């Protein structure tokens, strides 16, 4: 029976149901979690003995760069990233190559081997949506979706300048449907537009060129519009001044802007059973906090500014964030923040790429290597962990490497080991530059995370944050039958032996997607169906018509015709629209 399976006697971690390592059986029928299977079903069901193993919902990555134009630019400009890291094809799987920016197939397989079943692309420039969907369609093993980059969009900036909120709302709704994307991404609001003129913005109240909107206007308006439209996830913010010493203050101040905005996700979906409230209450989801938490005033007096942000997050409930950890080694920096990439080029002299995406946004790519011998890189390693360890309530944070910016997602097991084991951190301190110790507070932090907290950071909370917990990130009845089973016995787990944690999370004993075993101990054993999620927002028809008149008129500024602009559904693997009810 496809999609039906019984997982017996494992130590189950399902934080949304407050199940913390209880020995339980999990039953999945026709791809969905059920209370139990009938005797008839049990007769020929596949049964997995998970005795002595850790059972979690399938991993959910809410911020990763895995598909689209800049990811592909990263592949094209880095042959050296590919020739040493490759995989032959098998009767079931495609060949693939690439370490920090793997080919689509390899990327899908490697996520699946680690127990991940859902990954959201962090930045989809509207004009590149077709390309992004083509790559997502070809990425096996994973349910996917993408966030639309809107923080420097000409149409929106113009509506905001004119104060036409209704048209702005209609525009966002139409854009989500048109490009089959899921939520709003806001990258260096105001600044990327200025980069088109060789400038950036450096303060929240600095109006940008021509449109005269400030970053504050953008963050405030986008978060209000986000909730007015009832979008499942909060505005996803990549704050201004990223990567500059002292940027932590502008980050904290950016988080203050949507404080009074009330979260109102409003979707027509059936929710899996959960004990905790699976709906988000946050109005902003800050991404890769580490890169936005630099302290000091220059590279000489550089220090961690993480505490300034985490203190704010600890005392406020409208913020959730992901970490952007730096696990050392090769990375490829890629972002919609074009000027930030130019700064890195000036710093490193490496090859780089920069693009202006017509009337919408920008982007940049640059290869990077984080060295233990480098004072700044070592501090960044410590800061990424500070972000997660300083936030007291794990439900406010998400573990990422901003893959591949801090490092590739394949380093997640290493990051988990640092979070769970003081010894792992001490051993790395001994190997890396002393600034990690001197310029950050990580050395004084003794917290060791539990498996339950890891389950929150890597599946339950990313799913909840982006509004996918109605079917992902939980094993509640009605949820998708996505399960990761790890060779980790919580009763025998010795965190000082952190290599065992890395081994355990590197290759899941079983990755199960919709009730089917898809990978087993690092080997792909089945290629499942996949879904692509996007939001279908119902808005006022008149507003939409008035807005479309503008868009068509302004489309003369684009290099492509209006009819070529939308991404048709055929570009998506199993298109799965989520009905969203906008405020009337």
């Amino acid at each position, binding site marked *: 029976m496809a999609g039906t399976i019984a997982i017996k006697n494992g130590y189950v971690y399902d934080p949304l149901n407050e199940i913390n390592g209880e020995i339980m059986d999990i039953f999945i029928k026709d791809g969905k979690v059920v209370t139990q299977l009938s005797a008839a079903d049990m007769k020929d069901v596949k049964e997995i003995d998970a005795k002595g193993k850790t059972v979690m919902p399938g991993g959910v990555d809410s911020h990763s760069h895995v598909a689209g134009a800049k990811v592909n630019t990263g592949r094209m*400009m*880095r*042959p*050296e*990233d590919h020739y040493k890291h490759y995989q032959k094809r098998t009767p079931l799987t495609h060949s693939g190559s690439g370490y920090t920016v793997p080919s689509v197939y390899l990327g899908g397989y490697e996520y699946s081997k680690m127990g991940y079943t859902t990954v959201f692309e962090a930045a989809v420039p509207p004009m590149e949506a077709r390309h992004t969907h083509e790559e997502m369609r070809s990425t096996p093993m994973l349910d996917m979706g993408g966030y639309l980059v809107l923080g420097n969009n000409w149409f929106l900036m113009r509506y905001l300048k004119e104060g036409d909120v209704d048209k702005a709302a209609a525009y966002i709704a139409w854009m989500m449907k048109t490009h089959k994307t899921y939520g709003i991404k806001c990258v260096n609001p105001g600044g990327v537009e200025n980069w088109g003129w060789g400038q950036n913005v450096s303060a929240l109240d600095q109006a940008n060129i021509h449109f005269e909107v400030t970053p504050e206007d953008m963050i405030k308006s986008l978060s209000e519009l986000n909730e007015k439209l009832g979008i499942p996830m909060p505005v996803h913010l990549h704050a201004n001044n990223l990567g500059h010493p002292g940027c932590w203050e502008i980050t904290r101040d950016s988080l203050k802007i949507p404080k009074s905005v009330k979260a109102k996700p409003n979707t027509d979906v059936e929710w899996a059973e959960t004990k905790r409230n699976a709906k988000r209450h946050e109005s902003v989801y800050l991404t890769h906090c580490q890169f936005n938490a630099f302290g000091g005033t220059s590279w000489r007096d550089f220090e961690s500014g993480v505490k300034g942000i985490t203190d704010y997050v600890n005392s406020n409930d409208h913020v959730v964030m992901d970490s952007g950890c730096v696990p050392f080694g090769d990375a490829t920096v890629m972002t919609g923040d074009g000027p930030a990439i130019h700064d890195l080029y*000036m710093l490193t*002299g490496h090859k780089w790429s920069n693009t202006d995406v017509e009337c919408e946004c920008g982007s940049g790519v640059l290869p990077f290597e984080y060295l233990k011998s480098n004072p700044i890189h070592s501090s960044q390693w410590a800061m990424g962990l500070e972000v997660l360890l300083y936030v007291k309530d794990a439900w406010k944070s998400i573990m990422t490497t901003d893959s591949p910016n801090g490092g590739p997602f394949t380093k997640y097991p290493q990051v988990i080991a640092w979070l769970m084991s003081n010894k792992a951190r001490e051993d790395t301190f001994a190997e890396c530059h002393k600034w990690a110790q001197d310029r950050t507070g990580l050395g004084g932090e003794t917290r060791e995370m539990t498996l339950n907290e890891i389950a929150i950071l890597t599946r339950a909370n990313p799913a909840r944050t982006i509004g996918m917990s109605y079917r992902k990130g939980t094993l509640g009845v009605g949820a998708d039958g996505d399960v990761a089973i790890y060779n980790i016995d919580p009763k025998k787990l010795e965190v000082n032996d952190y290599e065992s944690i890395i081994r355990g999370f590197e290759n899941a004993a079983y990755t199960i997607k919709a009730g089917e075993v898809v990978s087993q101990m690092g080997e792909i054993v089945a290629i499942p169906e996949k879904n692509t999620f996007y939001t279908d927002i119902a808005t006022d028809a008149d507003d939409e018509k008035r807005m479309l008149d503008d868009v068509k008129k302004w489309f003369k500024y684009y290099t492509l015709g209006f009819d070529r602009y939308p991404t048709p559904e055929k570009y998506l693997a199993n298109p799965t629209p989520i009905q969203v009810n906008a405020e009337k």
Partner: protein
Amino acid sequence: MADVILKPIGNFDLTVEAEVVTPDNFAGKTADEIGKVLVWQGPAEYPLTDFFTVEGNGGSSAEDTTIIVDGEIPRVKRIGQQMTAGKVIIKGSAGMHVGSAMEGGEIIVEGDADSWVGMEMKGGSILIKGNTKDHLGCAYRGSWKGMTGGRITVEGDAVSQVGGGLSGGEIIINGNVKHFCGIRISSGLIVVKGNAFRTVGAEMTGGTIVVGGNIERFTPGFELVDIESDLKFNDIECPGEYNKFTGDYAIPQKGKGTLYVSCDNNECL
């Protein structure tokens, strides 16, 4: 010392990828077993005996194993790739990638070698008695980190991109080179006894380049700091008088590399 003798017998219509031909891989194998080792040719794998006769068993370790290729193999690539010890002697000419990413041991090519000799080499030594082509001791395409250790000696000429991205080790060319010799090097030593055409040391941030002959078009971005004579780098001697330059100042990192150019052969400088 055990000698394994490979005699080419043909069938090289498509080039053969022979990265398995290393002392490390042949050690502990009999001649028969060595003959069954698979090599790629185009899209398929074939046993070594399709291309070579094999004589002699491998030694007990890589160190004890010498591979002698008795003939011309310009269409066989990657001999000695990643080898860590032992010896490879190619009595004729060799194909591309001889000693790529080599870590130790010794390779001698008695004829010419094609491009990519000692690409990203880490240690050991390579001697090319004839000429070679491009990318000697260079970084792979797209990378900045070329050879990090060991020594490559070429008795004849090399062409372009010699030692690109060099970050350790030594390259000695007795003949001439063409373009981009020592581009983007950060450490290590390149000695060219003959002439270079242009862009010597472009974007270098460290390391040392010596050109004993003439540079047809000198790279802008270098500053003359001194004149030195009879240079000596351990056992490598460069007699004569040299202009000492530092650079390359044309890049934001402001290079700290050193470029010596023969005074006699570059009177225009």
